[in-house]
Every structure is written in C-alpha cells, then in structure tokens.
C-alpha cells in the first residue's frame, strides 16, 4: 500500500521531476518510471498464480489453496495437502478459465505436489524456475496468492508487500508435529501464510519468482506463526524429478544418523538426573580415567555449548552428542564460576581398554593430543565428521 501510494503520487509532479532529472543527468541514465513497471510486474506475476479448489470445507480446513504455473503447457506447482485429496480437483486461471487437473507427482519431504492442467493452450504465462534469482535479507518482496480464497473466477489473486526478514532453516511444527522440511527458507514480514495462501508465489519487485509460499506453520523457536516461502533452489531438483514422472523418495534432510553414535558415557560425563523439561545440563560426576577427566571437566560444570551449539537442557546435550559418530572429537564448552572453559573430548578407540594404565597420569592436554594423534594415524580415509569439524571451527 505504501509503495503503491508513493508511486502514484501526483503523476504531474513525478513527470516534472523526471524531466528535471533527465535534463540534469542525461537521457542514458534516466530510470524508467518504476511505478508503472512495478504495477506491470505485479500484474504479470498474478497471471502465473492459479486458484485451486478441492477437498475440505469443514471447520478450520479450507477447501482451496494457490498454485504456480511453471510451464507453458500447464504444469502447476503447489503444496501437498488434504485439498488435493479428491477426484474433483479444479484449477482456475487468472483469466477465469477453469479446468481439471491430474496429479503428476508429490514430494513428501518438502510437501509439494505437481499438477498438470488439461488445456489445449500451449502458451500459458508461467514462472521460469531455472531463471529464478536468490534474495537477500532486506530485499523488498511481494507475496502473491489467493489467501482466504478471496479472489474467484477471473479476479486477480491478492498482493502483499514486505521484506525478507531472515533466511533461516525451517524449524517449525504443525500442532505437535515437526515439519519434515528443514532447509533454509525466506522468512518475510508480510502476513503471507494465511489460509489459502500456500502454493502462492514470493516474487521480487521485478516480478521474478523467489520462492513458493508454504503451509501454515509455527516456529519451534518462538511459538509464533511463521510467514515464509521455500526458495526455488530448494525445490527445483524435486520438481524436475516429479515432472519426469519419477517419485521423490528422499528422506528428511535432517542428516544421516551416525552408524555408531557417541554417548556421554563414552566421554565419561554423567549429567545430573534429567527430571525437568529444561533441566540445566550440570555435570554430576566425571568418570575416572575418562576423556572428560583428562580434559579437566569437573562436577558442577554447566555444559553451555556442544560443538558451538548452545545447550539449554540435559536432553539437548545428550541429543547433540548422539548426533556424532563414536570416533568424532567433540568440543564441549562449560560454564565454571562465571567463565567459559573450552575443552575437546574424544572417546577412546573401541579396542582400547577403558583404563589405560600409563595414560591416566598424563595431563589433560597431552591426553587430548595423543587421542587426536591416534585417530589421525588410523588407517583409511579420515573420518568425515572430523574434517567438517576443522572447517567449521570458527563458525559459531
């Protein structure tokens, strides 16, 4: 609304200023009247967003959503949802033409679906996924969708404006369930993700597609409803797969579970009993002759970070450690008497006896070094976890 009003300020004034500028700076540098081009960009993008009607209609479950035309022959990309769960699915184009569609493929991880519109027209307006740019935090964006199903027939879909607030991993939940997609998304400050908006477009002020508006989700970090879009580069591959008729059977991108996960006991750390949902991760005791003892950890130390990630509870520490392979080194930062103490722990190799007689007397640094040396000299390729560790050393 702001930019529209700003843009439409007295055409006469704008023209005058333009003339003044062109006179001052020369015609080559004279910008085009962007008020007109913004309107054109919006209109152009609206033509590429479709209204989808399907199953639902009962309380709290709307029977409509939005979709993007991504090919001239009528491929429609949208979110996978209960709305598509019907034989009687219909799509209405910007010009009011309605048609039936068939479901070509789904991506269960990103919760996407590819539809094909049954039309003769081979020259439909569409977004070119391959040419989609990336956006930065602070970029002005437009969210274009049929939110609340407010547009019908040949009415253009709605346009909201805002900026990209953040680019961050989607850590979200729907009710009590975590969303399966964990990749980076554009978080925007427009109220972009309301009922019916899912499947709509996030575009820049030139009308170029940046991302697909997702389903309504709450942030796990803040508990607030998120307004976000999945960037094109996060789904372009999956769309190609769906379009070629193959199914996307990629597992959640959360990362592979380690084959032989590390446990706190391997490091010799015993935390206080985990009684509360957020029990502070204080060290209860340190096993003698363990890596933790060698690194100088003590009872009553509070585990603040594991590999640079902040730890809010005992459960978080156990989970963070369990994401590591047994042979990985783990950086543990503890809070002791108001100071942060950094340590690096590595579990003894599986062949080793838990109480090597001569190493127990050596000091912490020496023990750490020898453990590291042992793993580096181990046969075969270096453990991939360790390599990653080095490269992200400075990364908080």
């Amino acid at each position, binding site marked *: 609304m702001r930019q529209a009003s700003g843009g439409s300020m007295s055409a006469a004034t704008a023209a005058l200023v333009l003339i003044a500028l062109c006179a001052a700076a020369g015609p080559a540098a004279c910008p085009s009247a962007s008020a007109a081009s913004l309107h054109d960009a919006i209109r152009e993008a609206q033509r590429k967003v479709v209204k989808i009607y399907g199953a639902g209609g009962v309380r709290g479950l709307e029977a409509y959503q939005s979709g993007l035309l991504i090919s001239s022959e009528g491929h429609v990309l949208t979110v996978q949802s209960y709305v598509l769960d019907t034989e009687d699915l219909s799509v209405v184009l910007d010009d009011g033409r309605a048609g039936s569609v068939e479901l070509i493929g789904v991506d269960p991880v990103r919760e996407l679906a590819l539809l094909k519109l049954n039309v003769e027209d081979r020259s439909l307006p569409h977004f070119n996924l391959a040419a989609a740019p990336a956006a930065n935090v602070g970029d002005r964006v437009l969210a274009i969708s049929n939110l609340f199903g407010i547009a019908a027939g040949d009415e253009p879909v709605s346009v909201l404006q805002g900026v990209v607030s953040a680019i961050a991993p989607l850590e979200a939940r729907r009710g009590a369930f975590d969303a399966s997609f964990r990749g980076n998304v554009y978080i925007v400050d427009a109220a972009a993700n309301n009922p019916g908006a899912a499947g709509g477009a996030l575009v820049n002020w030139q009308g170029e597609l940046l991302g697909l508006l997702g389903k309504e989700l709450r942030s796990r970090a803040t508990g607030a409803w998120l307004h976000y879009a999945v960037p094109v580069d996060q789904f372009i591959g999956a769309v190609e797969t769906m379009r070629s008729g193959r199914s996307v059977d990629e597992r959640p991108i959360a990362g592979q579970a380690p084959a032989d996960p590390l446990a706190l006991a391997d490091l010799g750390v015993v935390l206080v009993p985990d009684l509360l949902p957020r029990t502070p*991760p204080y060290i209860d005791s340190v096993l003698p002759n363990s890596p933790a003892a060698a690194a100088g950890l003590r009872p009553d130390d509070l585990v603040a970070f594991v590999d640079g990630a902040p730890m809010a509870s005992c459960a978080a520490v156990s989970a963070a450690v369990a994401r590591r392979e047994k042979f990985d080194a783990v950086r543990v930062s503890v*809070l002791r008497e108001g100071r942060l103490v950094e340590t690096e722990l590595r579990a003894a190799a599986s062949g080793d006896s838990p109480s090597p007689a001569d190493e127990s007397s050596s000091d912490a640094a020496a023990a750490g070094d020898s453990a590291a040396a042992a793993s580096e000299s181990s046969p075969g390729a270096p453990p991939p976890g360790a390599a990653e560790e080095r490269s992200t050393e400075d990364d908080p």
Partner: protein
Amino acid sequence: MPIVPFVIRAAASMLPAQANPGPCRRPARPQTAAFRHAVQHRTITRIGALAALVAASFAPPAPAAELADLEQAAFTAAVDAVADSVVQIHAVGGLDEIDDQQLAQGATTGVIVSADGHIVSSAFGFAQQPTSIIVLLADGTRLPADLIGRDDNRMLVLLKVDPSRPLRAAEPAPLGEIRPGDWAVAVGRTYGLQQPSMSVGVISALKRMHGRALQTDANVSAANYGGPLVDVHGRVQGVLVPMAPQAGGAGEANVTAGAEYYDSGIGFAVPLEDVLRNLPRWKEQKDLKRGRLGVSFRDGNPHATRPVITAVWPGSPAAAAGWKVDDRIVAVNGRQVETQTQLRFEVGPRYAGDKLKFTLRRGAGADAEEIETQITLADRLPPFRHAFLGVLPERTAEAAESQPSDDPPAHEQSNASTDEEDAAADPPQDAQPADEPASDTASDAASGASAGVAIGAVWPDSPADRAGVEAGDRLVKLGDKPVASADEAVLLLNAKSPGDQIQVAIVRDGQPQQFDVQLAELPTEILSASDLPRRPAADEAADEAALQELKLPEIPQTARYFAPPKDGRRHGLLVWLGPPGEETATSRAAAWRRICRRDGLILLMPEPADAAGWAADDLEYLGRLLQTALARFDVDPHRIVVAGEGRGGQLAYTLALAGRRTIRGVVAIDSPLPRTLEVPDNSSNERLAILSIEAEGDPLALLVRKDVARLTEAGYPVTVITRRANSDDAAPDSATRAQTARWIDGLDRF
C-alpha cells in the same frame, strides 16, 4: 494522503546517509540487482537533489524507481549499522512452560548499551527464570552473562558481560526527533547469529502505554523481542518488548502479557533514550519497580473522571504526605492534570523512589485551598484492608425497595457524570452530592423513625458489639457524615482503615445515642446460625419443580438454575461451577434447594464447553452469563458469589478477581489459584471475600494454604474451612453447605 509526506521525508532523511558513509558501513555482501541499481543512480539522485534544492529549497520527491531502491538500500544499511550492537542471548535451564503456556524455546535478542558490557533485553525472554545466560556477540564471541536486574515497569532486563575489548554500544535516536510516520526497522538476532533479521514498518505513535513506549507496525514477536527498533540511520529508537496495559494493583508483573499481539501491526519499543537515562540507577538499584502512590480514585471513565481521592492507604507515600479523602490532584510537577488518565501519564513512566511534586485541591467553593506536597513513590504498598464496624443491615422488603436509588454504582455514576459536565464548565466544582445535606437536615433525618440504616444483627465481639450497639438500632451517622443507607455507610467505611477511631450515632427507641468505636479488620470467621437472626422463618414446603434453563445466543452451553419464589426480598446469586452434566446440576440443586429458599439465593449452574471440564476458554462465556443473569434477576448486589470445585474453583478465582466490582464472594473447593493469575491487591472500592474449602488430607492442601496466605497478604478477608473427605466427590457435605450458606449470608456485613 498522509503517506506521501512521509515518503518524501524518509527520502529526505535518507539522502545524507547515502551521501555520507558515516554510520552506514557497507560490508562485503552479495549485492542485489536492486542495490546495484541504487548505487548506479546515487549520483543522479544527488544531482537531482541539488536541482530540486535550487528549485524549491526542499529535498525532491525522487522518481518512484529511485525511491523504492534507495529505501531498500537504506533499510539494509540501517541494519548493518546497528548489527554490531545486537547480540543473541541463550538461556540455560529454567521452566519449560508456565501453566499451559508454552514458553519460547529459542534464543532471544539483546542490545548493547555500554562499551563495558551492559546489555538490555526484553523480560519476555527471561520468563522461564533461566539458571544461566550466555551471550553471543555479532562476531561469534561467547560470553557468560549475569542478570543484573529487571525493570517491571518497562518489561526489560539488564545483563552484564565482561568483554575482553570494548563493545560497540548502540547509538540512540533522539526521542525528540522521532515522529509518527518515520521509518522503523525491527531487528532481531534470534534465527541465526550471522545475519540479523529485519522487519520494516513505521513509527505508529509516540508515548503509548501511558508514556512508556513507542508503537510501530513493523512485525514484533519473539523473533525480535529485546532487539532494537532502528531508524534509517541505524540509530536505535527503542528496545522491542511485548506490552499490555497493566492492572493498577501490585503483584508480579506479567512479562508475557501482550505477546499475543505479535506480528499484528501493533508492536511496542521502549525508547532507548529513556533506558539510557535510567541506566545509572538501574545498575545501582538492580531492580526497577513501578512507582506507587497509595490512593484510590473515584469510579468512572478514567478519561473523563477527575482524580478525586476516595481512599488513602495507611502507610503509603500519600498517607505520609498528608493526603486526605476528597482531595483532588490538580497538578504533577507543575503540569495540570484534569483526568485520571492524565495523572497516569505523569505517574506511569516513573519508578519507585522517584520524587514528584503534587498540587492538591482541598475543600469546595470559596474554601478550596491548593496544597503543595512532595511524594516519593513506593515500590510496594501494604495491602488495603477494609475497616469493620460489626453490623449486619436488616434485609427487609423496604430496604430492598429503597436500595435502587442508593445503589453504589448508580451513586458513583452520578458523581462521574457530574464530573463530566464539570469538565466543560468553568470553574470546576468539587462538591459531591453526598456532602450536600447540611447538618440540620441530618438531625431531621435522625429524629425520623425510618431514618438511617436498620441494624438486623450485631457481629459478636466486633467494635459495634463492644460499644453496645444492638440489633434493632438504627445507624444514622458515621463520624460527622449522616448515613441514609447501608451503601452510604460502606462508602464512608471504605475511606477508613482498621484501627481508626470513629463516632457512631444511632437511634434506639426514638432516642439518639453516640458511641466512640475503634474500627477492626473484616472478620474471617463464620457466624453461627443464632447470630444471624435476620431471616424470615424458613419455608419447609418441598417442591420438586424442574430446574429452569438460561441460554445465551450463539452459545451451545446450557446454564441451569433454581430461583426461589419471589418474597419481596432481593435474592442473592450463587454461580456454581461444578462438573459438567445435567445430573450433577440436579443433584447440586437438590442439596441447595432448601438453603436457597430460606436465604433467598438463586443457584445458577453453568456447564463448561468441553465435557472434560472447565477451561480458561470458558471465562468469556461465564462473564457474559453473569451479565445476563444480573440483567434478568433483581439481584442483591452484596451477595453475588461465584463458587467452583477443583478446576471450576480456579476459574471462579479468575472470574472474581477480574470482576471484583460486581462479585462479592468466591468459594473455592479444593482449588489452588491458577498459576498464571496475577493477584491484584485488595482495593478500597471493592469488597471481595474469599472462602476456601479444603478436604481433610487433600494432597493439594499445601498448595491451597500457600495461596490462601498469598490472598491474605494481598488484603482479602479469607475464610478457610475443612470438610470431610468423601471419596473423590468435591460436592460439599451438608455441614459444609450450611457453613457456606452462613458465610454468604454474612457478606453484607460492614
């Protein structure tokens, strides 16, 4: 259109920032096409600006393309400029949720306010009372932090880290320069450490929340609470916080209040200039508290009602300064205040310990004098306790008939409306209608047989009892004020405190008599039946008429009620929040029917929306139901009681503490207070009494006892009775019912 001017102003204020690289460091980051575009055309803009300055001595409205791109570049430059002063904060340990409310799990944001490591954040991120706090600086440095103190007036916390090098403190935007319509960018560092998040809006208003906060339409949520709201130069306008209007009472400040309005177009930020001004004392005092006066004001619309004092808390700053009932506050620090709202704007932003000059107007008409006093605001007041004379007014048909005209709300409203008219008139009049009868009129009244208040019973061992007042006497004067009704007597006593001496004039057998009494505190014991001889003979005729139903439009729930036949008395209202189901209503009604008929009580039994039982969602329904019931039945305003069993009792507490103006009693059976409930202090104009019923050997009893102590501490008269534990059923046995009935019957004591 007001929009165009602000766009122009934003453009104008941006130009120097663009021309001067000062605060807008631009780090190497991927440049968008739009930004490159902006850079390419910066030269043109400057030339254009010069051209326009020559032409019109005014920054030009740049062409829209320029403007849009420049604006976008300015937003990111503003965020870059402040980024080093924005930190991420991690709380370790603490609570997971408060009651049913899940607390945010993620990081929160803070603003560096001093080079030596002071950081301000929103109290919202610290609601869980973390055991340890870690701060991550923009460059990734991790530092343990100490929580120095809280500010419960502006919902902030102050942290301190010990950095190895000086930190970059945020630069404040001068408060005097901030105007509605200015760009405002809300910045957070919650999602990730590398890059702050941002939301763009404008300043919507200044001096919101009684002068404590700026308002913005940028998205404000847990993603940026504690972060800065910055102008296009990256100067910090304020620190983002959730905020909601505060209840007048004491009690713990609710730091999560207002968070439900996240991302809604209404966000708040505490001006950084205000924070910095208070920083030295904040460091020294550790906790900053809201400042309190210790007075209550006349009822009525606060925007139109004069700040006329109706009670002065004993031991409060106001009492120490010699303030008196009926004084009117006319100025604070030399600034005129006409209404209670204006007064709140003057006092609301202050802290305990602040000294303020108050000008009072005492007396009416030609005798009025202006008094200058100085007050040091207190952080806590001793809770108000009502004074007790020890009489129960006779509850007769005539008394009931005469009541409507003396009804306290009606009385107060008439005062309020007089004041509104006063506001227009000049000079204002301070005389209250209650003061108008001259003393000779009073003595006329005293001689009449029906003058004053008929005393139905005297509370044993009360001040009245010890002075020799007897049932059948008529109370005609308290101090030098004539008393025409029980409500007038209560109003007069509301301005007194336990321990005060007062002269009581009565008429006995046509003869005036006077006693000097020392007022006591409201009693918490329950009288025996023989001490409550005011009732007409109990009608033992048993009728088994079916319960009647009360339904609200558009609400599926049914409330069932039993109303005794009309007998000329105004009936009390007992709202009973029991388990759901018609059977329980029928059995409750069967148990209470005889008492209802004898004491003139309407028993109203609503049911929860969810068959699982009462939930906080039912509060709105109950509020509406109560209003409907009060409109339908001619209810005795002194005997409106809400009772509940278990969870229903918790709801009864919530309902009664929120509706103290209407509700006079709450009966809680096996119910502790809801955990999230802020217990407001007892207030002079409201007379809420509490009856807590606990089962013998109930495991909850310990919790309930703690809450009883909390309510007593807040100044409420709390009566505790123990009932026999009969399995799981919370329905009171007959002895408990009888005690409850006598407690309700004594609620109109004064």
